């Protein structure tokens, strides 16, 4: 039995070592997409996010913070190959349309290598709850986790 345990520990150690090596290669990070609408209510938006396609892969698109933008935004699959993703969402709920600084989405990425990639965003178009075109700005920041677990995270600006 002792012999078996020794072999098992050797096998386990080998597995851990291999895991550490691989872990250094790929990291998973999330990025918050925030828009600033000023005094306008946000009815719809379309933003483009640019990333280095050789090292960054988008692995998920999450919905935003307000209930009206909680559903995961849609993306245009055509843009994915070229190192950009176009996100869009809208709401028709006049009562709870958000305004000010709004986290409208979050993107999940896998990143090869140790360097922090340059990821940027720009607004394509936006409208208020009445369908009128509005000017907004967009910011992207890495989401930092506060603790272990799925739900507790905070954003590091």
């Amino acid at each position, binding site marked *: 039995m002792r012999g078996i345990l020794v072999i098992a520990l050797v096998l386990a150690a080998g597995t851990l070592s291999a895991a550490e090596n691989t872990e250094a290669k*790929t990291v998973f990070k999330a990025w918050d997409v925030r828009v600033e609408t000023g005094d306008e209510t946000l009815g719809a938006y379309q933003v483009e996010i640019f990333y280095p396609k050789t090292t960054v892969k988008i692995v998920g698109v*999450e919905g935003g913070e307000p209930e009206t933008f909680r559903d995961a935004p849609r993306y245009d699959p055509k843009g994915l190959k070229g190192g950009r993703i176009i996100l869009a969402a809208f709401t028709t709920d006049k009562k709870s349309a958000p305004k000010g600084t709004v986290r409208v989405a979050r993107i*999940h990425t896998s990143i090869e290598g140790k360097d922090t990639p340059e990821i940027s965003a720009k607004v394509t178009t936006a409208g208020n709850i009445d369908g009128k075109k509005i000017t907004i700005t967009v910011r992207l920041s890495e989401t930092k986790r506060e603790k272990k677990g799925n739900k507790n995270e905070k954003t590091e600006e």
Partner: protein
Amino acid sequence: MRRPRNRETLVPLVAAVVVVAVLLVIAGCSPDRRGFSLSSPLAGGREPARPWETTGMSEELWVIEKSSGDMPRSRGDTEKPPSQGELRAKRGEKEIPLPLEHTDVKAQISAFVATVDVTQKYHNPYDTKIEAVYVFPLPQSAAVTEFVMTIGTRRIRAIIREREEAKKIYEEARRQGKVASLLTQERPNIFTQKVANIEPGKKIDINITYFNPLRYDNGEYEFVFPTVVGPRFNPPGSTGGVGAVPRGKAGRSGQKTEVQYLKPGERSGHDIAISVDVAAGVEIEKIYSPTHAVNVTPRGTNRAQVALSPMDAIPNKDFLLRYRVAGGTLKTALLTHRSKDENTFALVLHPPADMKDLPRMPREMVFVLDCSGSMHGMPIAKAKEAMRRCLRKLDENDTFQIIRFSDNASRLGSAPVPATKENLRRGLEYLDGLTSGGGTMMIEGIKAALDFPHDKEKLRIVSFMTDGYIGNETDILAAIEKKLGSARIFSFGVGSAVNRYLLERMAKIGRGAAAFVGLSEGAGAAVDQFYERASRPALAGVEIDWGRMKVNSTYPKSPPDLFVGRPVIITGHFQGTGKTIVHVKGRCGTEEKSYAIDVDLDGPGAEHQGISRIWARWKIAELSDTETHSPSVELKQEITDVSLRYGILSRYTAFLAVDSLSDTSGTHGVTVNVPVPVPDGVRYETTVEE
């Protein structure tokens, strides 16, 4: 347990035993006389199962197996352990706690297109982290376009990627303890869902959306939602098929894809809810399900809400919903979708009504009956009932042959015989004597049906009567393509969860049509329609003049032959606006036929967003058909490109979602395959490899 036969099998087996032992030691367990006996407290309720607690409850046996990943596997080699870590639960006749709790299906039907949302509700009833793996069916023509993973209130939309790349990222996320999910297509109608790192007690929902054109046959629309993959037979030596193994026996079949089946008397607790909102646009005359108990709530005359009765919620047979609309035979319909990149249309083309009046042609009917183990009982009885009815409809100008196949093929006589009273009596006797058992070597049936000289004076109709439970569909379709000649194939699916993909494709390649009969409905109506269709000449060599529509990239590339009572859908890109006239012409026997269709490209109700994705799905289907007989790197790339561009799942792509914020503790946990019941009417003993 048999002894390992050689060094190659011994080494990995030892490694596997070591790892099993280590896992059990870590879990604080020790082997007893029954093996590694562990139990869970789940007998009385829904508390988390604790695989490593020994409570001495003899009715429950929990085993954890872990093996090295590169085990050699072969069919029937029972001493070889599974290739993945796996948690197994055996609870006698009781409900088995499994990670898939519920499937919720919400369909909306508009015109002839169904938009279907499928939510699979996963949970972890164990007290260790798991990866859930579920192999499930969808309609073969479904265009899967969306995939969202919900964790609590957070919704993460999956990204479509090349399959190998997506798999690699998923495996890495799984290894790092991230909650992740991966959806892949194994066949056009079989999919695998993986959900990694579900922590004990946690729930994760997976939502899949697809578009699906409805089948329309003899005045009725049919919505189909398959709920279970039937157990497939794979020819000896094959590895790329779909294996059927008992619950907890992962890796036994040696096939690339595997479905685990519950044993008789076991149930998983997984149930299904289905609701369908039918917006017919015209008055609904009749709406019913031939397979399930349903509650129908009319919403005016043109609309109805249909819900599956909770009493009929076991997912062990296809759900069928049929409805007939006012006005008898439907007129041609045109749907369009305009976008900045392209305009797409879908035209439902009905055959001319007067084709019914054409004289029937003398036929050489070749009936091919699947007598394999999966047809045992009700399915073969239904198939025989259908064949008897067909035989009785033949007249003396026709000839017929009956071929049976299972592990091999045999036939009534060396050549088709005239349908005289005496020959028909002999044929019926031969049919009565046929029994089921053994494998499904369909290739033998195809050779026997197509490899003999054709009587040029007669229309050769080959009718396959089968459940289609085979894993080597590509081989079969390629063989048909090669051997077809001038024959037409009319496939006849029999059973509660038929492999519709195979049957439809056989018919398409064979320039015929497919028909299906369930176990709970009489074969009469389906056979009569089938016979009528096979008897009359089709409108062949169809050519279409599109009028003022400038049309390109149509699929199918060549319009198929039109049969009485069965429209076809043609989809393509177009330029143009307003009204125009489309002219269709073709040959019916020796007669030239043509007819005109008025279409309005901007007419009310013409717009349908789903059309462009249906076009893409059909393009992928056509490229895949070509791939069955002429595979190439270019074709693979083209399928991949279309799939990525339109965001539609294909065999070369996958949907991937990773929650990069999740950090679950420990390693990736054990893999739990979701076992399913064998389809209603199918016997476990004759289909699942014990």
